[in-house]
């Protein structure tokens, strides 16, 4: 949660708070959800054929939504980002490496920062344009970010609705240490287990890269099974329902049966829902398994073996034991700390985890799990 929404009492500089901050500075952490932005509209042009510059100037991006610019649910803050995150040299929040280092990476001792670029070619209806933008973003990540700060690692973004092009892009980048995962968004034309997406999973497994599924995206489907809601908060809360459905689809379509080495990471959609979803899936599967013969084991088995979750926005129930129950049911080895920098609903590393966690679990939560899942140990 953004500090500006905290109660005054919480902001008070008590001895304990400053102690906690100092401790956190010493502790190295991974941030598994950082959003790098472009400083200008033309920043990607050097990485794209001239044809696409003209195309974009003339027709723009033509996505699965009506607004030419910006979202139909206005965000809570400009660009959904912290007001204190505008770089001094100008440009959007998250568009300056030096300011990101100064404001976030250095003071929070981020030793591994995973970049998840949004506003890519995903959800663009023109598939050639989608592939061109994605490939450009991947080059841009190396040029502007990962090539200049070794703490940062990129995500291979792909034209999600053109799985042949997506798989080719993954194979092109396979083995490049600048990238640690393939990135999809949760909202696509179809649920993520459907066959149109299978070549993406095959290529990712082959490259030994986890597939991250970040909340958001555009596939033209309303964000509820009853059509479009009214408010931004419904979209924000709704990401967790989208993610639950995608996960059910992935399991029930047999994706993990087909790709036993595939790892997937659910990003920015919460994790508290996971136990209940697993119990429901297992129960219903007992009744209906004859419909899905490719699913050989209880669904929760696949989820346990193949799925990780990033933490932000952290579930924070009134009573910390409720949170610990849920994490125990999921496993302390399955959560990856993330801040969502520079977005407004940023989770502050020093405040996110209540007291009472063992050192081993704390280390796994903040860094160890991330190193393992991304193969960086």
């Amino acid at each position, binding site marked *: 949660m953004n500090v500006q929404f905290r109660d005054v009492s919480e902001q008070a500089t008590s001895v304990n708070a400053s102690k906690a901050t100092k401790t956190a500075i010493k502790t190295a952490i991974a941030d598994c959800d950082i959003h790098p932005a472009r400083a200008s509209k033309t920043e990607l042009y050097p990485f794209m054929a001239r044809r696409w510059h003209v195309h974009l100037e003339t027709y723009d991006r033509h996505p699965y939504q009506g607004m030419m610019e910006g979202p139909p649910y206005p965000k809570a803050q400009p660009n959904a980002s912290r007001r204190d995150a505008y770089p001094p040299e100008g440009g959007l929040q998250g568009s300056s490496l030096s300011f990101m280092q100064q404001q976030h990476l250095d003071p929070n001792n981020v030793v591994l920062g995973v970049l998840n670029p949004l506003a890519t070619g995903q959800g663009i209806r023109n598939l050639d344009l989608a592939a061109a933008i994605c490939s450009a973003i991947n080059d841009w990540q190396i040029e502007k970010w990962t090539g200049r700060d070794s703490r940062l690692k990129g995500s291979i973004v792909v034209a999600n609705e053109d799985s042949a092009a997506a798989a080719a892009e993954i194979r092109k980048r396979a083995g490049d240490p600048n990238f640690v995962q393939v990135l999809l968004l949760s909202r696509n*034309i179809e649920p993520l287990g459907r066959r149109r997406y299978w070549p993406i999973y095959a290529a990712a497994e082959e490259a030994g890269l986890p597939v991250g599924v970040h909340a958001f995206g555009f596939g033209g*489907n309303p964000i509820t099974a*009853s059509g479009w*809601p009214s408010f931004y908060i419904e979209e924000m809360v709704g990401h967790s*329902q989208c993610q639950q459905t995608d996960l059910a*689809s992935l399991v029930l379509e047999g994706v993990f049966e087909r790709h036993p080495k595939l790892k997937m990471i659910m990003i920015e959609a919460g994790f508290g829902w996971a136990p209940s979803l697993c119990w429901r899936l297992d129960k219903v*599967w007992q009744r*209906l398994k004859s419909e899905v013969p490719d699913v050989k084991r209880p669904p929760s088995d696949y989820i346990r073996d193949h799925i990780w979750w990033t933490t932000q926005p952290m*579930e*924070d129930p009134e009573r910390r034991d409720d949170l610990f129950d849920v994490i125990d049911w999921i496993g302390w080895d399955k959560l990856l700390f993330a801040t969502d920098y520079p977005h407004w609903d940023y989770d502050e590393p020093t405040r996110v985890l209540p007291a009472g966690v063992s050192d081993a679990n704390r280390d796994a939560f903040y860094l160890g799990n991330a190193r393992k899942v991304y193969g960086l140990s």
Partner: protein
Amino acid sequence: MTSSIAGGVDCDLHPAVPHLTSLLPYLNDYWRDQVTTRGMVDLVSQSYPPNSPISARPDWRPAQGKPGSRLPDMQMQALDPFKVAYGICNPLFGVQMVFSEDMADAFCRALNDWLAREWLDKDERLRGSIVIPVQSVEKSVAEIERCAADKRFVQVLMLVMGDMPLGKRTWWPIYAAAERLGLPIGIHAGSSYHNPPTSVGWGSYHIEDYVAQAQAFQTQLTSLIVEGVFARHPRLKMVMLESGFTWLPPFLWRLHKFWRGIRMETPWVDRAPLEIVRSNIRFSLQPVDAPPDPSILNRLFDHMQSDELLLFSTDYPHWQFDGNEVLPEGLSSDLVRKIMIDNPYATYGRLTQPVLKETTP
């Protein structure tokens, strides 16, 4: 196994219309003629394919006809064994799927009359839900008012997946009528299939549609809370039927967090989501999406921070449990009493608790 107690209320029973033609006696000449001349087919929703294992428990499946289509079966299999004082009938006949509001209205009127004549008249324990033609808010209100004169109708019934999120202001005249007449709104699993059955499109399998009901309830609860339905209608109760409930606490943690962050968007939401749920929302017991371990289940009940949210249900004839194990293991006797008796009576204002006959020497 936790034993059930006598005198409870089964809040989710599904009597089945044998066939669309069973409604012919309850349709006017025009619609009777439409049904026969056009060769209209039965309105069976693919939310519950009749032969799917979840649609009927194996030992509750009749030799012939749809599960739940015979009153003697329901009496023998659900009403008698659980010794309920009342059973609330929630027909899942697929009237929500048609697109014409006139046709939906005719079918709903016939369905509600059929329920009163063929079920409520024949067993005094039974109570009904008013199925409304959601294709028209105006006609829905008229049907609520028409049926409410019969006090055996104790709630209004809608499906969790439809054309529009249920908090939208368009629906509010329905809620105003229900509140005025002391009728909770029951929201049952199922879809009109006018939108994809998930928020990320059409899945491949029936099992996905069923799993997705839980996510649909979550988005509807968000909509109902943030649109301000309960600020406008503080006395309105809503009951989530066949929704599952173990998703509720983490859902509320998330909603609460975003409500704190962006409440300026919906300033009329002046109470925390959990408080709104406590005062206005209830959940039917079955299905219990939890492992059989009572210690986990009791942690889940603790996470709910209230023992007033659950209402007893068998979900008859759907296959949610085996034998008499309708109550999960490990419930305290206090909680059993809350779930089976106190909570349903507190929710359904039209149910009067029968005076228990004490045997005096």
